[in-house]
């Protein structure tokens, strides 16, 4: 009979709407990171590095990129005869069918999958954090403490604590109280959205809560297990962990990689992060290239200036072009003489000759101030920016734009252009 001690369920179905046009065509876990990776590579690599060899990936929102990226799990050695990686989209059932309506509901709809591995423990992960963590250590503590559920937590600044789900614990790590975004926090231990459950306990809870609309781990399942068993423990994590759920944190976390010795160092051999990539030629820096404080993906060709930036693979920066404080994803082309400052430019976008991105001063976004609230100019995948236009700060562009979209050659700060036409 098949038996796995612990399997992982990775929640990757969310849109990540606060990433704006970056997640217009793909789920957040598929968004590129660090010039080579996708966000989901971090939890997936953590799984294999922690000897968790069975992972269900729950997809729902725009799954194509994610499906392609994960495939049968070869880059993570997750192409296993028994176990390995399985993509779990919502599916039609003979009775009531529904989309995944909440994090716990998604897991509930896949009880059969979990049952088939007969696990003792289930690890619940989300696909939107950048970190390296040994889930095996967390499991050890879970077993040692006799917990029914263990929640990974990390200490945050007291001033920031009001933004998180806060866990109040006794001296032994046992959770005594939860506070969701408390005005006056009693603790600074924030939930990281990583849980280990005794499987039978989780199963019971999910069955019990099956009719709760939008059933969610933080709101419903954890409080239920807490109420029923009073054996919910915290596992304190003190390493690097970043939520890249907003444009600003996404940009900052990428930029940190370019520092001399980054806090999150991808160059160390320990705990390697694996990803799915094609074979590429090395990056090429031309005779007149000037590249400093930057990371440049394989297959890229740089003929201009690149400073404090993260470039993905097969990016082209033309002669006389400047890229400063920016993230360029795979296949972006910056034509001759263009200037790009403080921008996030998604896959395969072309920026025409002598265009200037990130000019002027901050203005409130006319599109969505909850999403766009920094100096960043954000351009979605497959967009085209024509030659010689000027684009302000805190802007959003998606689609193939032409000179007619830029009155007087401008997109003012805070402005946006969202086109529905075919992408490049």
């Amino acid at each position: 009979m098949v038996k796995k001690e612990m399997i992982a369920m990775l929640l990757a179905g969310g849109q990540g709407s606060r990433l704006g046009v970056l997640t217009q065509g793909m789920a957040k876990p598929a968004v590129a990171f660090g010039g080579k990776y996708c966000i989901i590579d971090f939890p997936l690599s953590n799984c294999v590095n922690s000897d968790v060899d069975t992972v269900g990936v729950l997809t729902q929102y725009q799954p194509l990129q994610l499906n392609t990226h994960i495939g049968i799990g070869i880059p993570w050695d997750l192409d296993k005869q028994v176990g390995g990686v399985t993509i779990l989209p919502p599916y039609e059932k003979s009775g009531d069918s529904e989309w995944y309506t909440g994090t716990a509901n998604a897991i509930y709809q896949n009880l059969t999958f979990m049952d088939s591995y007969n696990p003792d423990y289930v690890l619940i992960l989300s696909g939107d954090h950048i970190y390296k963590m040994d889930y095996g250590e967390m499991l050890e503590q879970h077993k040692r403490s006799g917990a029914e559920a263990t929640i990974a937590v990390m200490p945050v600044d007291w001033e920031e604590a009001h933004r998180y789900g806060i866990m109040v614990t006794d001296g032994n790590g046992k959770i005594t109280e939860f506070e969701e975004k408390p005005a006056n926090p009693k603790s600074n231990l924030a939930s990281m959205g990583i849980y280990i459950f005794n499987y039978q306990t989780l199963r019971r809870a999910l069955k019990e809560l099956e009719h709760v609309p939008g059933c969610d781990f933080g709101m419903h399942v954890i409080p239920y297990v807490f109420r029923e068993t009073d054996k919910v423990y915290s596992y304190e994590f003190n390493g690097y962990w970043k939520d890249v759920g907003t444009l600003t944190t996404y940009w900052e976390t990428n930029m940190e990689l370019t520092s001399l010795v980054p806090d999150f160092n991808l160059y160390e051999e320990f705990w390697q992060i694996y990803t799915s990539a094609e074979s590429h030629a090395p990056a090429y820096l031309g005779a007149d290239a000037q590249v400093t404080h930057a990371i440049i993906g394989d297959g890229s060709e740089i003929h201009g200036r690149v400073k404090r930036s993260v470039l993905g693979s097969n990016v082209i920066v033309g002669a006389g072009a400047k890229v400063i404080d920016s993230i360029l994803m795979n296949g972006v082309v910056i034509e001759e003489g263009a200037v790009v400052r403080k921008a996030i430019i998604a896959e395969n976008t072309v920026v025409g000759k002598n265009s200037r991105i990130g000019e002027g001063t901050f203005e409130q976004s006319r599109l969505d101030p909850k999403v766009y609230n920094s100096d960043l100019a954000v351009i979605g995948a497959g967009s085209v920016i024509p030659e010689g236009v000027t684009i302000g700060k805190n802007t959003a562009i998606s689609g193939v734009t032409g000179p007619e979209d830029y009155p007087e050659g401008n997109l003012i700060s805070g402005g946006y252009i969202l086109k529905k036409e075919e992408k490049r």
Partner: protein
Amino acid sequence: MKAVGIILAGGGSERMKGLADIRAVAAMPVAGAYRAVDFALSNMANARINAVAVITQYSSRSLNEHLNSPSWWGFGRKQGGLYLLNPTITPDSTNWFRGTADALIQNLDFIKERHEPYVVIASGDGVYKLDLDDVLAKHVESGAQISVVCKEKNGLEAGRFGVIETDAEKRIIAWHEKEEGAEGELVNCGIYLIRRLRLIRLLEECKRQDNYDFVRDVLVKNLENERIKAYVMDGYWKNIASAQSYFECNMDMLDPALRRKFFYDHPKISTKVDDFPPAKFNDNAKVSNALAAGGTIVNGAVENSVLFKKVYVGDGSSVKNCVLLNDVYVGDGVTLENCIVEKKMKIEDGTCIIGDPNDVTVIA
């Protein structure tokens, strides 16, 4: 195409100035992220040859490691696949492969058990992009019984290659194998196309006569008996089995047009994929006309050079016209010019080594 591929990758080379001590020539890293054998393998995969055998012998560990999965080149596992044929002891033979023909003869079972009508044999130390479908089309059209892929001689050293003379129909009429000063318009690239059953017959004949060399004993000996014709290929071709040609080949890859042809244009050359992070350039890096592969970190100055995977260049160092293989560590204040640095070498702070551009220095 309906052919089985065989890559001869069993050789070392004394012309490599020690670079081939630890690996077969076919396993030599090329262009920052590739290995020599990737070119022969990709050309076969791109012609939809499904089954490819790589014959190894000399210093094969590195090569075996590189060929750890058929999927890097798109070969399957059931309908064909990637086969590694290593020398083996049998009740009939305790010999190593005594030559290229002997390597094939000792693996005759593999060739016999395949069903494809043709065999493409290629050496693993050539850097080129070749449309094998076109070779087959010309082979059939010209009525050749064996096709030998050739390149215009254009200054290539006769002593390193087979120099070939042909008649008006491109039939080979004379073959000067590695003779200094030999005259002829073409050189042999070491890529052959032949019907499988004909190959089996020729190899069995060769075996009966206790002969071991494919060129000398199968091709040259049969120039009159078989219609052996030259297929002249266009474009870039380089055999890397000498330190100087290896160096030149890597420097050639600094040309964007050549890289585009090999690594960007369909169908492209593929290789085993690593998981190193992208190359990183710190505040004082000054890099021009250089390739930098994954995992590389540059603090100093690099010019006209190829940095392979996970190379580190320290502060205030200057690297010019160099090829630094995987995991080379260049300390601070180092000057290197016209050098090939063997993998994992550590160049101590303050070292200064300036080689001759026409006779490159190998640091191993």
